[in-house]
């Protein structure tokens, strides 16, 4: 060996000393399943030592600085797998119960990105922020890797034996879960419960809609949430239902809503009125938005019901009369939705929809939705049983009642008293801490399952990676405990054999089946007594879910914590939103900590001034203050002046406000009257990515033409005249091949922020932590700018996705001294990280401020979380500028694939990550040199404009104006 080495080159002493031995040490690094790297075993340590030594030695040896790189091929390569080629698997998102279809992109055996499944009948290719981010849950190093028994690690066999032993003779066995939309799981649970005298499966939703099925039970005789068809509606009136944000199935609804409002394509646009207390993203898109205190929202519903039924009561305000008139005109093509958690209100809503003939048209009760199957009554009775000690065994499946329900502490005490309590969850949460057994569930990307989000549509879930820990699918657990141990794969397959074409359905990710139609009986009028309009004392509290964080199930996810709220643009916190007028009255400034009193508990939260909110309302987000967020104590760069961790004084992100939920036994209510707001005198800094700057400059000055609007009546066929400014050197840069461009439809954009997370996942954008966001150093390449117009009380909102505009006359490029940012022959503004010296001149000189600087080496210590990184995108080091690349890696991939196949690139072959994820399809990417491409057509639209066109930087991103469906006076369009 020595002889062999004498004339050859080697990179390290370790290598020189003996290749094979070294390789044995090395192979534990990559050869095994990723699970092996979770717990470093001695082999790996030895490897690291060897690698470190080899590094040091090679530095000493001269200039060969790179450590030896090993390449370990498979021993036996599975068919179809080629190193470096992504494989896509169709699956179903389990980020919430909406059941959107996803395509899981896997590279070399590890899933790295979720894409919406464009063929999926519900989500139609979109995927929300929470869904996009859910892939990080797979690589969560704090996920449970083995079962726990009385808080201690135990073997599955031991745990199963013990559970079965304690189940013997049990009478009242309860399974408590959120909505389970998987028929197989429901079947497995039912099979398990059938063994017992009194077995019941109780489903509840922390974001409950149970008043809707309750009302339908009264009016139509079926307990179901209808499948709302927003695409068929020409008039939508919503009472506090944030259906574009978080209500039931936002991705599906956004796609459908957009379909009904694509004025340019259809020459018409649905008219949308929103009655709400806080400013939701649905409200931000409404053609008429009415801000009211919660109690008044309900009263408006009453008034609308009588308006629709019997013509005009004289005292109805004009906006209601307008809504009623429009509804009646569009009878059968209209839709009234209601997010109020009260059966009476929902009965009224049903009555209106019935009167308008919307059932069977825009409200589908025959093939209802199964995305919210919870029953608050059943929950109430279970809680009663628990209090009374009448439960023998409680199985909590995927839920966290202790943190999600009011009276959680008492509930935990009751659970602790149970002889058998089992949590089937992914992480050790508040509820799991109270149970005797914790049986860790697979992440959904590791498991076989299915979903039937809407009757007749089955979505399949297939594993795309071997389980990373010693977890077990909940379906398997229940089937094992019912004495029929079968794998989840077998169970799912058996369940659908004969009903669907298995191979094809699995490939597509979904199947349509003949579902036994629910048989609603004829409408039965239910009298609803008019609500007493009590003069409300104090403030009304509204508890709401934030896009991304939802009910708190994603509280472990740093991407979602750092995702700015679509309206407030605040990250890493929940807070008390107050109308500016209310804040002025209270003498509260933004960031002042206030105590919210009047409920069973009082909480202290920093105040946020929210324009457009009702003045008697204080709005607080749910889902914060979760145990899962304790991990963020150390997120972000640690340095001399880093002001605090990303968590609050309680060691958690935000404050849990579930204690303020009102639960009257019939339904969980998200508003509460009689609230007092008290100043504490303390202040808490909030981490917002954007402050309250409106389009008009403070202190006067004309409004800036950054957001442009048009009216439905003014939509013309005029094509946009191009290039208002002449080019001085047209022949120098002709762009004869492709020229990439993007069009963003501001009318379609709801601000839901799915694109922000999609971009973050695709492009390896780091999480910077609260302190860095507070210093205005968030790294998102794609941000959504939110602008207000109007007065602080009555605002109009515009969402503007803002990313690198890939200007032809890029101001950033001219100023870079080292040519680290230059233009490509296809019109891309390239940023070459390895050439960048970090002068930040380019960012200063960017009119859009679309560039992001690596102020620190943002931590990437979590080796497991690093598995989600996209290997096609360079990780940026400290001191380097970065920005949106138009997903140049996707352009490359598509081009190379087309070239390999010998075909030209077609329009639509390249989809950027943001475009792919957008539920409203607001983003279109393509070749503007191809006159028939979709982006070219949009660029010629009469709505097209470019932001800051007047400075003639020639951006490649075209924006399409917002269409306001109203006349100048706000009346009929």
């Amino acid at each position, binding site marked *: 060996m020595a002889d062999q080495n004498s004339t050859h080159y080697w990179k390290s002493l370790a290598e020189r000393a003996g290749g094979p031995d070294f390789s044995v040490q090395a192979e534990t690094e990559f050869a095994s399943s990723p699970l092996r790297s979770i717990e470093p075993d001695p082999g790996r340590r030895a490897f690291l030592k060897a690698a470190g030594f080899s590094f040091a030695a090679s530095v000493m040896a001269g200039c060969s600085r790179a450590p030896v790189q090993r390449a370990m091929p498979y021993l036996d390569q599975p068919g179809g797998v080629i190193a470096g080629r992504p494989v896509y698997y169709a699956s179903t998102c389990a980020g919430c119960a909406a059941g959107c279809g996803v395509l899981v992109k896997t590279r070399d055996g590890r899933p790295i990105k979720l894409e919406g499944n464009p063929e999926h009948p519900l989500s139609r290719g979109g995927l929300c922020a929470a869904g996009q981010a859910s892939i990080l849950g797979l690589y969560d190093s704090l996920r449970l890797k083995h079962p726990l028994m009385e808080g201690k690690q135990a073997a599955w066999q031991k745990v199963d034996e013990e559970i079965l032993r304690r189940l013997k003779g049990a009478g009242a066995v309860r399974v408590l879960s959120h909505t389970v939309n998987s028929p197989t799981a429901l079947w497995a649970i039912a099979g398990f419960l059938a063994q017992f005298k009194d077995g019941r499966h109780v489903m509840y939703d922390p974001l409950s809609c149970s008043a809707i099925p309750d009302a339908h039970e009264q009016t139509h005789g079926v307990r179901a949430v209808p499948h709302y068809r927003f695409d068929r509606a020409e008039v939508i009136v919503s009472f506090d239902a944030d259906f574009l944000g978080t209500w039931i199935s936002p991705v599906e609804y956004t796609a459908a809503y957009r379909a009904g409002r694509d004025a340019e394509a259809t020459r018409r646009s649905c008219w949308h009125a929103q009655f709400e207390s806080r400013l939701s993203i649905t409200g931000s898109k409404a053609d008429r938005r009415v801000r009211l205190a919660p109690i008044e929202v309900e009263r408006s519903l009453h008034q609308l019901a009588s308006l629709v039924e019997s013509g005009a009561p004289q005292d109805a305000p004009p906006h209601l009369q307008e809504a009623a008139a429009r509804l009646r005109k569009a009878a059968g093509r209209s839709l009234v939705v209601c997010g109020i958690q009260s059966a009476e209100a929902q009965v009224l809503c049903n009555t209106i929809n019935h009167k308008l003939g919307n059932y069977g048209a825009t409200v589908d009760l025959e093939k209802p939705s199964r995305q919210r199957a919870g029953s608050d009554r059943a929950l109430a009775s279970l809680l009663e049983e628990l209090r009374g000690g009448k439960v023998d065994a409680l199985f909590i499946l995927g839920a966290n009642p202790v943190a999600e329900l009011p009276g959680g502490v008492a509930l935990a005490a009751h659970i602790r008293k149970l002889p058998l309590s089992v949590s089937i969850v992914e992480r050790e949460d508040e509820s799991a801490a109270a149970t005797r057994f914790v049986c860790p569930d697979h992440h959904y990307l590791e498991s076989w399952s299915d979903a039937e989000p809407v009757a007749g549509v089955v979505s399949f879930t297939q594993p795309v990676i071997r389980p990373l820990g010693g977890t077990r699918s909940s379906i398997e657990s229940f089937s094992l405990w019912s004495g029929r141990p079968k794998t989840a794969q077998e169970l799912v397959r058996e369940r659908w054999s004969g009903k669907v074409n298995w191979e094809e359905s699995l490939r597509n990710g979904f199947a349509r089946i003949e579902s036994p139609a629910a048989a609603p009986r004829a409408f039965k009028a239910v009298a609803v007594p008019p609500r007493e309009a009590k003069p409300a004392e104090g403030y009304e509290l509204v508890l709401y879910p934030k896009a991304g964080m939802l009910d708190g199930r994603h509280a472990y996810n740093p991407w979602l914590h750092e995702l700015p709220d679509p309206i407030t643009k605040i990250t890493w916190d929940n807070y008390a939103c107050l109308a500016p007028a209310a804040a002025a009255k209270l003498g509260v400034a933004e960031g002042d900590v206030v105590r919210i009193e009047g409920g069973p508990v009082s909480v202290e939260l920093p105040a946020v001034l929210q324009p457009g909110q009702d003045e008697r309302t204080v709005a607080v987000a749910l889902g914060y203050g979760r145990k899962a967020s304790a991990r963020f104590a150390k997120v972000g760069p640690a340095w*001399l*002046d880093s002001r605090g961790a990303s968590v609050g004084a309680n060691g958690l992100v935000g404050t849990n406000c579930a204690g303020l939920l009102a639960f009257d036994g019939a339904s969980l209510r998200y508003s509460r009257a009689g609230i007092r707001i008290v100043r504490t005198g303390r202040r808490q800094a909030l981490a917002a990515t954007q402050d309250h*700057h409106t389009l008009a400059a403070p202190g006067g000055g004309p409004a800036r033409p950054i957001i442009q609007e048009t009216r439905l009546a003014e939509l013309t066929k005029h094509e946009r005249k191009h290039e208002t400014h002449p080019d001085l050197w047209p022949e120098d840069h002709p762009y004869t091949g492709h020229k990439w461009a993007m069009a963003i439809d501001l009318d379609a954009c709801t601000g839901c922020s799915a694109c922000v997370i999609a971009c973050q996942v695709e492009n390896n954008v780091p999480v910077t932590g609260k302190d860095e966001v507070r210093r205005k150093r968030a790294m998102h390449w794609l941000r959504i700018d939110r602008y207000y117009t109007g007065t602080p009380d009555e605002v109009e909102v515009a969402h*503007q996705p803002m990313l690198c505009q890939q200007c032809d006359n890029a101001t950033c490029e001219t100023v870079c001294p080292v*040519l680290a940012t230059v233009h490509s022959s296809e019109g891309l503004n390239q940023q070459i990280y390895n050439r960048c010296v970090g*002068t930040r001149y380019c960012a200063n000189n960017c009119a859009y401020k679309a560039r992001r600087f690596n102020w620190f080496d943002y931590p990437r210590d979590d080796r497991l979380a690093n598995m989600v990184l996209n290997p096609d995108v360079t990780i940026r080091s400290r*001191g380097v500028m970065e920005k949106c690349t138009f997903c140049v890696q996707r352009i490359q991939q598509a081009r190379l694939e087309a070239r390999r196949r010998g075909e030209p690139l077609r329009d639509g072959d390249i989809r950027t990550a943001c475009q792919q994820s957008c539920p409203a399809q607001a983003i279109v990417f393509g070749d503007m040199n191809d006159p028939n491409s979709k982006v070219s057509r949009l660029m010629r639209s009469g709505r097209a404009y470019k932001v800051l066109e007047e400075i003639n930087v020639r951006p490649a991103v075209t924006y399409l104006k917002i269409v306001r469906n109203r006349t100048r006076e706000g009346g009929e369009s």
Partner: protein
Amino acid sequence: MAGVVSVLRTPLVAGGKRISDVTRDVCAAMDRKPGALWWAGFLLSVTMLAAGAAAVAYQVATGIGTWGLNTTVGWAFDITNFVFWVGIGHAGTLISAILFLLRQRWRTSVNRSAEAMTLFAVMCAGIFPLIHMGRPWLAFWVFPYPNWRGPLWINFRSPLAWDAFAISTYFIISATFWYIGLIPDLATIRDRAQAGLKRSIISFFSLGWDGSYRTWQRYETVYTLLAGLATPLVISVHTIVSWDFATSVIPGWHATIFPPYFVAGAIFSGMAMVLTLMIVVRKTMRLEDYITVRHVETMARLVIVTSLMVGLAYLTEFFTALYSGNPYEMFVFTNRAAGPFAWAYWTMVSANVLVPQFLWLRRVRTSMAAVFVISLLVNVGMWFERFVIIVTSLHRDYLPANWTGYTPTLIEVATLAGSFGLFFTCFLLFSRLLPVIAMGEVKGVLSYAKEKRHA
């Protein structure tokens, strides 16, 4: 006394000095043991320098994030300090080159220290573009050198590349100019010194100067040529520095008035710094006869002139913006005067435009204490001018969604202090080790008033 003696005929050096007195006086200042004041100043400077060095080391090791910058405000203290120091440097070149070409013979007393000040100021300035980089260890990439990348050169269109060339040329030419001026004086010191290390070192650098008039003639030619080169150079340097801003698209930066405005501002701040230093030097080094009240007065007049120029630039800028009808431009200026950084703006206006007007009064001009205070205030004001231009333009530019604020961190403040530490440390060492007054030139003007009488 007033009005009787013509200013022109007043001797440039007071006290009826003879040639040998010049040598003795100037060298005596170097030979004396440093006083307590010197030591106090030196210790303070070195402490500041050490603090700055520590801050820079920490920042380079940790990241630019240790500064208070953010996505919108990408430059603040760093480039403010850079422009400030470059501006300071300009007065030295002005005195040594431009006044030389204009035959302003009073400059001889102050040109040596003014040139030294230039060098040290340019050193301080040069540090900032280096350390403001995210990866300063790759700073050499801004110079074109043969490479294995294709080869890949640099972007000659970037004002930062211009800066790199301008600042390095400026430093090299200023250093050369200064050294050329020093050679005869080094010879003088050499010939006075006892044999020893000091003599050997000085002898090495004096290049064997022997006072031959043939050399003197060429020396004068070279000196004039260098002065002729340095004059457009100094203007080009600050013009290029101003182009860092003027060539950009940022409202408040993109202004054609910037080059003359910056050059005037540079001379203004530089004159103020020269005054600050000279008033201290003449007092502490007992050189009142060489740096006379007349010198101070003349420079004070220059301060008034440049102050008015700068004031005019402020007005023009405002007028251009408000008259332009460009909403972004208009906003930047109203925001400067009334926005969150209004305090900085009004500090700048009062220190740069209002305060120097006191120098119209002869009583103020001839009072060393008053001039000293005013010169300090002008320095502060000029620092704020650059801060205002950089930060207020950036922090609220085109898209209101990007608007942020800016607060410096301790690291940045320490770095600024460090640059002052470096400057004063160098200057104090210079004042001990080298003749602060150009003996060769002062000797040449001793007969100035006498000559006039002959004429």
